[in-house]
């Protein structure tokens, strides 16, 4: 063991990252690690099994975390590092892992996610993959996707975006000339994905939505055990993404280097249109406008009727919301869209937190909520303990976000409206609808009802009309 002076001497350089919290440590994290996001994205590709290159624990923890939300089998293979693989490199483990998972699952594709362990020892997974691809027999075997996503860089959202890009890079081809559209929907719920499908299909154009885990992570009950559940974006559709006229890329937090939309634009000339998640009227209007523009088709009338019902609901319920305050948190694009929606219904977000670091976050939130921005405490690099500390001075009326915020809501003694990812303490967490006019109306009802229930329970005489 070294003595103290030696330890102190070696403690260089200073931890210089700016942080908007008071503690060096993260207390009750409001983020997850990159491989989790990659695994979810890979599960949204037809016949694809994720393979985590690293310790067994990474795959098992991510499976368990995902299963508690989706309530579905989530098989994720692991290359099962040992001490000797950490010393000599993980090449052999990766090769036998790919062979074993191919034998057992017969996948169409394997999505390989690296981890902090393999990135730190400098394993060159891209090179291993090239070797495997060039040395295997001509009949092929599964397509190999590969994303370099150590847990020490970014969050689950970085893993999510980079995995999608790895899929597109491996499969998409074309020259951006055909009358079809791509939709990259962000890390949304399975019900959201089904809503997007319905919207896209209603326009009557060819499209590719990637990823699509609406069936693979939220399917029906089975007659026989399915090694890899049916569903996911078809590889043949991914191949066509390069020939689409435009990509609608939802969420603006991904960097150009991470974005499959940017890759398609630069490589295949597919116009990349970046939009906020369609939550709230303004964001959803923008989404439909972009879709009309990209397809050259008018939105079917059923969507304007849905919009009409949403406006009607806003008015019917406005008194329960107007003047209220909320804490809202989660991943950046979700939070920005939610903040915009809350501003539309007169709820002022006073605590706005996200787990990743971003200098642009405050500006995005302020732009989304307009005049109420002055009241909002916008915290990037946030954790739940910090949000609780900040919220105690002036507790919000309601907490809105994933179920990890139960810690906030319970300590503040205010209701929690569960949405986003993960939801580990309620049924149907994977089926919460957030997007489009119908998603917004569903969120609006949930928020109003939570506030109404508070009022009802607080009333001595227990009103039966509210």
């Amino acid at each position: 063991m070294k003595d103290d002076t030696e330890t102190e001497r070696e403690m260089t350089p200073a931890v210089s990252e700016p942080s908007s919290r008071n503690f060096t440590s993260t207390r009750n994290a409001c983020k997850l690690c990159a491989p989790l996001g990659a695994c979810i994205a890979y599960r949204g590709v037809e016949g694809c099994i994720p393979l985590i290159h690293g310790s067994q624990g990474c795959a098992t923890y991510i499976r368990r975390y995902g299963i508690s939300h989706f309530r579905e089998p989530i098989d994720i293979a692991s290359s099962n590092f040992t001490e000797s693989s950490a010393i000599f490199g993980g090449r052999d483990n990766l090769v036998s892992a790919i062979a074993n998972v191919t034998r057992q699952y017969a996948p169409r594709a394997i999505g390989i996610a690296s981890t902090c362990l393999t990135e730190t020892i400098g394993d060159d997974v891209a090179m291993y993959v090239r070797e495997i691809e060039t040395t295997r027999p001509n009949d092929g075997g599964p397509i190999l996707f590969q994303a370099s996503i150590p847990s020490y860089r970014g969050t689950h959202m970085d893993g999510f975006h980079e995995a999608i890009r790895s899929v597109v890079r491996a499969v998409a081809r074309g020259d951006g000339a055909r009358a079809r559209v791509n939709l990259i929907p962000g890390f949304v719920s399975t019900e959201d994905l089904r809503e997007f499908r319905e919207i896209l299909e209603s326009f009557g154009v060819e499209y590719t939505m990637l990823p699509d885990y609406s069936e693979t992570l939220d399917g029906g009950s089975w007659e026989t055990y399915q090694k890899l559940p049916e569903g996911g974006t078809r590889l043949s559709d991914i191949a066509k993404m390069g020939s689409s006229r435009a990509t609608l890329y939802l969420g603006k937090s991904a960097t150009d280097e991470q974005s499959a939309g940017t890759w398609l634009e630069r490589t295949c000339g597919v116009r990349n249109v970046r939009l906020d998640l369609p939550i709230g009227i303004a964001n959803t209007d923008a989404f439909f406008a972009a879709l009309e523009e990209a397809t050259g088709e008018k939105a079917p009338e059923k969507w304007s009727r849905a919009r009409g019902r949403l406006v009607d609901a806003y008015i019917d319920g406005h008194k329960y919301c107007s003047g209220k305050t909320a804490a809202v948190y989660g991943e950046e694009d979700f939070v920005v869209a939610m903040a915009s929606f809350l501003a539309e219904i007169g709820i002022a977000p006073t605590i706005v937190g996200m787990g990743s670091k971003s200098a642009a976050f405050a500006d995005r939130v302020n732009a989304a909520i307009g005049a109420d921005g002055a009241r909002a405490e916008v915290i990037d690099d946030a954790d739940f303990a910090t949000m609780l500390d900040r919220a105690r001075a002036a507790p919000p009326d309601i907490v809105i976000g994933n179920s990890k915020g139960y810690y906030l809501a319970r300590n503040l003694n205010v209701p929690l409206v569960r949405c986003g990812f993960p939801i580990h303490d309620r049924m149907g967490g994977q089926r919460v609808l957030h997007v489009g006019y119908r998603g917004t109306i569903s969120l609006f009802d949930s928020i109003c009802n939570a506030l109404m229930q508070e009022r009802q329970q607080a009333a001595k005489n227990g009103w039966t009309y509210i």
Partner: protein
Amino acid sequence: MVEILEERARQVFEKGKDGYAIECGKTSAAGSVSQRACVFCGSRVVLYPIADALHLIHGPIGCAAYTWDIRGSMSSGPELHRMSFSTDLGENEVIYGGEKKLYAALCELIDHYEPKAAFVYSTCIVGLIGDDVGAVCARVSREKGIPVLPVNSEGFKGTKKDGYRAACEAVFKLTGKDDETPVSRLSINILGDFNLAGETWIIKDYYRRMGIEVVSCITGDGRVGEIARSHRAALNVVQCSGSMTYLAKMMKEAYGIPFMRVSYFGIEDMSKALYDVAEHFGDAETLERTRELVYGEVNALLPELAAIKADLDGKKAAIYVGGSFKSFALVKALRHIGMRTVVVGSQTGTPEDYEYLKEITDEGTVICDDTNPLELSRFIMEKGADLLIGGVKERPIAYKMGIAFCDHNHERKEALAGFSGMLNFAREVRASVMSPVWKFSPARIAAQSAAKGGQT
């Protein structure tokens, strides 16, 4: 048909058909979807219930995020263990080292939360980036005046069992510190109960009624101060032996405390545990009190179980758990409610464990080590199980195939230990097996029509 990987051929055994010794203790085959976790997981779950200690995870964020509030371990007082603290290492620390961040994190947290001790868990990359966690812990311990213990739990350096061992080594350092507080002659430590859903309290109450003092429980509803005087107990009673036998051995060597292995699940094992402890002390009054206790509890329990058995008689169960000691008790407990075990396996069983399982199970039972979802689904279907007992990762396998499920893992919210736990277990199994929803399950419908077809 699901193929069993070559490397795993002898990790699967069918009683009455196969004749070999079951292979176990192996590293999981690369590419298999093992249900196991890692070294860190082993340490984290064992130490987690110590409620007045700070648990700081030194590494990138994932390991802390996935283990926040992961166990249903209850505390009668402080709840610091339910917080998730991480040094949340970034690229900067991976390049320049994380010691400075660890030092700052520890000092702030100790100042703010005033824990009685702190555990610092090393994750995969800590050794690779060269952090001297021991030196930082020693320094903070001197400066803050509390034990600050490194837990050598780098995920890839072994299996979950190595994590148990690292946890035992860390917790051992808390023992032997308090020689002042009086301790009874008839005293024990409970090792390896984690107070899931308040189970430690059930067991402690039995010992109280027997006139036996529980000096400490390691680690359920655990307190640093109790562990400090645990070396003065007369006996260590070890349940969940996979995780805690190592600590019992260390305490035997250092303090001369004998230990015995017990299980608190099911009627036989629970009764035997109490009798074994009473007999160890050989005190006539204690023995008499124990007899009265067991007699009263079992008499109250049996009529309730009989009613449940009437519903469940002839049904078949599959068991897949972490440590196999628990599976012994479950095989026996299931018989009390009329159920036969047709598949049984564990993540970390030993050769002796599997030999014992061969003895107590019926012909045709599949016994498996470190199995995976595909194999498990195949065994369940082949053997026609009506119930799977396991953890959250096994749950969707059962549900997708239309069979009942009982959570016997560390996230459970029902107390399943003790006599009252046996009743909870039976009720939970009945509620799931007898639910009317299964009649809509496609797998069930297919199995039924196949059975009908076979008859005609």
